[in-house]
Structure formats: structure tokens, C-alpha cells
């Protein structure tokens, strides 16, 4: 068992301080008789670059200026200042909200957004100004994924503050919601993280005691992983030093689920701390279809198109990516994680998992 010192309380203080500073900056400009201006990094596609040393997308040096003195900007400046105020209240009072919820809340302050797209965009603006993800100021996505394994956490949310929970407490896993995201890590016996794309396999792994047999914390991704899940995986990797292995379907979409956890997405180029560059895509690979004689389907046109896109993507340099992309092209087949059931329900745990982990460790 390892004792861990964690960071969520510190992080909350920092977020609040940044929001307040943002407000003070606006306030000061008005008081001095200026139309308040906001300068933030441009998120247009020509300002998004891949940084090989960070192993993620980053924004370039282009800035965009929003001035309350400009008729075309004043509305978005107002929305932005309101948004900062609103999430500051959320964070201060330790309440959470969702993107949808924020969109409706704005109407109570007579700061209307024409659509949720508009309010989502303002939240992203605020993220890039503050350098923090929206989960840090308590705006969470709708989708939820889960985690299971021997990790004791301590809640920091009101009413649960100081309470601890071991993540093996519930056989369905524990939902990765706002409370878990803001919890401190206390201790763990695990020595690795296994992330799984699909719920069926996640449950199978718990039933087959994978967490004990492989000393692993299991994370359910639920398709393309929500940012809070990506953030949790990063914390498990960075704060606890656990290696991360990602299992997805053997198709271009599965590959990319792993890639986004590892290297992030262009949409989140303004954010840090969401990627886990050392995580590994552990399968199922195209070559596994051949090696394990897995039942497979022919690639659709859209799969092939996506493979070609990925082949050109700068994040896909090197192996296993290039090797597996070539293999997909060569065999023109894909398969799902469940394909291992062709050889019995526990085949994937008994045979594939130990072999693959052995190869990668």
C-alpha cells in the first residue's frame, strides 16, 4: 500500500483565483474608462499544431481580441464575463452543472445564448483563457464512465468531505462523476490501469477478478472517453505512476479512442493535463485478428476512409500505429473485443490479456 499526496483541493483554489483575477482585470478596465478587452489564444485550425515534445496538440501564438467597444464582440464579452461569474459561483459553492444546464442558467441572468453551441463555445473560450478544463470549474459532460479497483479515495465535495471509499466497493464499478473527479487519491495496491472500451467487457473483467489477478485498476471508457475520464486516467498515471493499457475494438475507431487518451484531440489543444502520453494501446490490434484467429468482418468504405485519414495524422507516426494501420489495410478486416468469446467467455482474460501485458511490460 502506498500513501499518496494529491492535488484536487489546491487545484480548486487555483481555478477560483484565476476566475477572480479575470474579473478584476475587466473591472479595472471599466473603472479606468476603457472598454474592457479580452485577449485569448486563437483556436482556429491554422493555429493548432502538434507538439512532439509534449506529445499532444497545442495552440500557436495567434491571439484573438474581444473588445466590449466593438459591436460585434460585446455580446460574447458579456457572455464570457457572465460565464466566469457563473462557474466561479459553482466552484465556490461546490455545485456542479452540465453544458446543457449552463445554457439554460444563462436565461435566468438575462444573458441569452441563441443555442447551446454558442454557450459551449463560450465555455471553451473560458477554458483557453484560464488554461483549465471545464471540469475544473465544475461543468461536467452528460456521459459518464466508471472505474473499479483497489484505490481508496477521499471526497472533497460538500456533505461527503473527508469520507473515503474503496473503488472495489461496488461490483458495477463507481461512476466517474464530479465527486470522483474532485476526490483525492489516498492509497492503492494496484500497479497498472486497464482501460476498456466497452461495458460488457468491463463487467466480465470484474467478474473474472482481473483487478486482483493483474493488480489493475479497471476503467470503463464507454466509447470515446469523456474528458473527466481522460483526466482521471492521467491522474492515475501521473500521481500514482501507474502504467496504462487501453483495450478497444480492432478498427480505426477503436484505435482513435486510444489515441485521444494518449495524445488528446485538436479540440482540446488549448488544454493541458488531459493526455496520458505514456499510455499504451494494448489491443485489439489488426495483427491479433490473424494471430488469434478471431472472427472478423470486412472493413466498410467508411472504415477505409478513416484509416487513410489516420495514416496521414501526425499523431500516428511510429508503432504500433503504422504497423497496425498497414495490417488493417492488408487484411481489410476488423473485429470487436467480444470476438474472443468465440473461444469461450474467459479466453480473453485467461490467454490474451496475460500474453499481451507480458509483451508490453
Amino acid at each position, binding site marked *: 500500500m502506498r500513501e499518496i499526496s494529491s492535488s484536487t483541493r489546491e487545484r480548486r483554489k487555483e481555478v477560483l483565483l484565476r476566475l477572480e483575477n479575470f*474579473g*478584476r482585470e475587466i*473591472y479595472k478596465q471599466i*473603472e479606468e*474608462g476603457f472598454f474592457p478587452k479580452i485577449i485569448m489564444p486563437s483556436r482556429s485550425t491554422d493555429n493548432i499544431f502538434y507538439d512532439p515534445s509534449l506529445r499532444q496538440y497545442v495552440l500557436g501564438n495567434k491571439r484573438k481580441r474581444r473588445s466590449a467597444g466593438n459591436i460585434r464582440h460585446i455580446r460574447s464579452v*458579456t457572455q464570457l*464575463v457572465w460565464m466566469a*461569474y457563473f462557474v466561479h459561483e459553482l466552484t465556490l459553492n461546490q455545485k456542479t452543472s452540465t453544458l446543457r444546464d449552463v445554457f439554460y442558467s444563462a436565461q435566468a441572468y438575462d444573458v441569452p445564448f441563441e443555442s447551446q453551441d454558442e454557450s459551449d463555445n463560450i465555455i471553451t473560450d473560458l477554458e483557453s483563457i484560464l488554461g483549465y478544463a471545464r471540469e475544473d470549474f465544475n461543468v461536467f459532460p452528460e456521459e459518464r464512465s466508471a472505474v473499479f479497483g483497489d484505490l481508496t479515495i477521499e471526497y472533497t465535495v460538500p456533505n461527503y468531505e473527508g469520507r473515503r471509499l474503496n473503488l472495489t466497493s461496488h461490483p458495477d464499478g463507481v461512476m466517474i462523476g464530479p465527486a470522483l473527479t474532485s476526490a483525492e487519491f489516498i492509497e492503492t495496491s494496484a500497479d497498472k490501469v486497464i482501460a476498456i472500451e466497452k461495458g460488457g467487457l468491463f463487467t466480465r473483467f470484474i467478474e473474472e477478478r482481473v483487478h486482483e489477478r493483474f493488480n489493475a485498476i479497471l476503467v470503463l471508457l464507454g466509447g470515446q472517453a469523456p474528458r473527466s475520464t481522460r483526466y482521471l486516467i492521467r491522474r492515475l498515471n501521473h500521481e500514482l505512476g501507474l502504467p496504462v493499457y487501453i483495450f478497444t475494438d480492432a478498427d480505426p475507431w477503436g484505435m482513435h479512442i486510444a489515441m485521444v487518451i494518449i495524445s488528446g484531440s485538436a479540440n482540446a489543444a488549448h488544454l493541458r493535463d488531459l493526455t496520458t502520453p505514456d499510455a499504451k494501446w494494448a489491443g485489439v490490434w489488426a495483427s491479433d485478428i490473424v494471430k488469434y484467429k478471431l472472427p472478423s468482418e470486412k472493413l466498410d468504405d467508411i472504415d477505409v476512409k478513416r484509416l487513410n485519414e489516420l495514416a496521414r495524422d501526425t499523431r500516428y507516426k511510429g508503432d504500433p500505429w503504422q504497423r497496425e494501420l498497414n495490417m488493417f489495410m492488408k487484411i481489410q478486416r476488423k473485429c470487436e473485443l467480444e470476438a474472443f468469446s468465440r473461444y469461450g467467455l474467459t479466453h480473453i482474460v485467461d490467454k490474451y490479456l496475460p500474453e499481451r501485458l507480458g509483451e508490453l511490460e
Partner: protein
Amino acid sequence: MRVISQAFQEISPADFFYRNREIAGFSNPSKAVFSAIRELVENSLDATEPFGILPDIYIRLSSTSNNEVEEGFYSLIVEDNGIGIPGEHIPHAFCQFLFSSKYRLRQSRGTFGLGGTMAILYGQVTTNKPVRVVSSTGDQKIYEFLLMIDIERNRPIILGKKTYNNDEQWHGTIVEISLEGDYPRAKPKIVDYLKQTAIANPYANIMFVDPRGRLYKFERTMSTLPPQPKETLPHPHGVDVETMHRMVRATQCKTLIDFLEKHFHRVGRQTARSFLEFAGFPEDMDPKALKPEEIVRLVQAMRSFNGFLPPDASCLSPLGEEILKAGIVKELEPEFVAVTQRKPSAYSGHPFIVEVGIAYGGKVPVRDDGDITLYRFANKIPLVYDESGDVSWKVIKSIEWRRYGVEPGMPLAVIVHICSTKVPWKTVGKEMIADRPEISHEILYGIREVARKLKLYLSRKEKAKHEKARLSVFAKYLPKIAEFSTKLAGEKNVPDIKGLLRRVRRLEGD
């Protein structure tokens, strides 16, 4: 070879107009009641304004039908405060065709004194009732005549004559006729006509009482009359062979050069000399010695000679920008009005002046078809029929109005007044002006000029509207920015944004 004997018959001018009354605008009961009013009102205007009298015109149309069989019969009275007609001339002036005091080369509303007599003739043939005329020139006597027209002989028939003492020195004319008509159908055109007459004559008081007792009142809003036209000599470009014959017959001059200098408009000694050289006639030739074929050659040479000065416009009586504008403002109460008077020009030796106005907003009507409303005037007479055949309409349709910020369906009216010693009518009905290149050119440039001013106005208005909307955006959002940033910064007092709002306003040049 067979000889065919035919009965040849001379008809009188009265008979001719009786047989061809549609050419003078009396083709059907609806058009007839309109034309009767129009002709008598124009006579009244011609009896007042040119003589420095501010017109007061009273029109009453009443139904004389007692039962349904007789439906459509009216009595029409038109009364003015004009110069009046001397008693001895009254029968001929009203009941003889082509008897007129207007046969002169200066602009007037009518020329031949035809219209008024036509109205009387029409009344007579539809009701067999006489016309009653009361008139005085302001001397001691007022004359009252009951008259009919002897159509075959073109002579007045005097049925009754009375004289009254004129102690109050009243001057003016009252004409009362009976006629068949269709007022319900004619009403819109009559009201349009009177309204437009009021636009072109803002110095006139016009009252109309219709058969249902409704009063339409167009009140005088200015007491300045337009300057009166001078009588003028014919311009060489506008003279035909017959006119030349008559002039040669009448002249006292002994040489051609004197003849040209004395009888033609804007021809001086120098011009006459170079013209005769051009035409190949000796300067000292006696005009009366010109043979008929030489007269034809002389007229043709006049047409093709480029050395004549253009006719001047002193014989014309335009409304003037001030009157036109006052008329438009009075009747349309527009939000914006611009007028222009073009420089005098000439076609075929006939001088003319085009005046154009444009009116936007206010009571300017919006047409159902979204087109621009066009008010046409010729020698101060409104033209209310046959718009689509008129040169002004053609010019309006040729303009790319969007370039001037005009959208279909806007309350926009264009007013075109053409005055000339000879208006180029397209038809004898005098409702459409023909498309002479010189005239359409002046109309086009006139409309462009006022349309540019409209464009400026519309764009300023649009800008003001835009700026107002702009200011309201700042007024809406700046307080919120101040409020939320104050809360976020943990400050107590919301900063003052009045200064910022003032700066927004100042940027607008307000």
C-alpha cells in the same frame, strides 16, 4: 367609263366633334363625367392664375335622377373667381367650337377652347338640356345665359339672357350643365385628378361636393403665383409650310432678312444672314415673291440648319421648385421630398421644361403592385389615365431603383411636370406624352437628380436606425459586464459605465 355621282357634304366643327366625341375624352359615361369636370376646372384655372388671381374653384356634381329608369343623370356646376367673359362673347365662347382666346404661342392649359364646349355639347346630346352660364368681368353687369349649340351650323342658340347689377364687382364664371354620367365608376379618377391638381396648383382653393354630399376640400397653402409666360414668336425649327405661307402673307417686311429677323424667335441679323447663305436665298428678296415650292424649300432649310439658337423658355410657365415642393408637401405630407427644375430644352423648335419631384413616406401611397406611384403633369394638368403608355412611366421603369436604395413596396412617388408651348401628345385624348428623345432625356436626368437625394436621405435614415440599434446593444450589455465583473472581482461598487456609453454615442456623431 361610268360617272359616279356622290353626295358631298360639308360638316361643321360642332358636327365633327359630335360625331367624334371619344377623341376629346367623352367615350363613355364614366370618362365623360371625369372629362367634363376636368375641362371646366382647367378653364377656371386658365381664367385665374395667368391673370394674377388666386384661384377659388367650387365644383358641385348632383344627381338629377328621380327614379331608377333615369339613373346616371347629373347636374354639374363649376364656379370660379376668374376674369370673366364679356357679355357679348359668352354665347360664342361656350357654344361655338374653335372659338378661343388662347390661340397664342404661349403655354396654357388648353389651346382651342374645345374642352369646355365639348362638355356642353356632350351634356346637350345626352340630356337635351341647355347650359347655364353666369359671368362678369367685374364691371357693372352680371350676365346670365341659357344656351344650346346648333350642332349642324356650329352656332350658339340663345334660349334666355338676363343681366344683373354687379354692385359687389364680382368677377368670375359659373357654368352649369346637365349630363349623363357614371359617377361611382369615375369617382377614384376624379378625386385623383383633383388631388393632383392641388399638387400642381398649391395656390388654389378647390372644393368639390359629390352627389352623395361628400365634400373634398383642397386648401391653398401659398399665395405666390408662378411667373406668367410671355408670348413668343415661332422658332424656325417648329414652323411648317402652312404657317410660313400665312406669315409671308401677313408680313410688312420687304426683304427676307428683315422678315426672318422680325418674325422668328431668337433670330438676329447675323443668324438670318448665315441662314440665308446656307439656304441659298438672297437677303434682299421680297418674301411675297416666294413661290410655293420656294416656301417648301425654305422651311426644309430651316429644319436642317444648325445655326439657330435654341428657343428660350420665357414663354413657358413652369411651376418652379418652390411651388412644386409646396404642392407635394401639402397633399402627400411626405417624410422626404426633393424637387428639381431642369434647364429649358427644346424638341423640334418647341421649348419645354421638365420639373421632377420625389416624395417618400408620410401619406405617399403604396401601390398594390409594389411599383412607384407616378404623378404626371403636362402644363400643370394632371394626367390620370393611360399611365403605362406615357414617356415618364417608361423612364421610371428603365431606372435601376435599387441603386438608389429603393425597394419594391416603398411609399414612394415620382412627380413629373412637363411644360411646353406644344406638349407632344401621343394621342388626341391628351393623356399620354410621347417619347421624344429630348424629353425623355430631361425626365431621366431629373429623376436621377432627385433620386440621388433620396438615396442620401434613405442611407442617412438607415444609418441613424442602425446607430440607434447599436447604441441599444451597448446599453444592454455594458451594465451586465460591469455587474458580473464586479461580483467576480469581489468589489462592492459597480463601476460607472456612463462615460463609455457617451463614447459610443460620440462615435456615432450624434
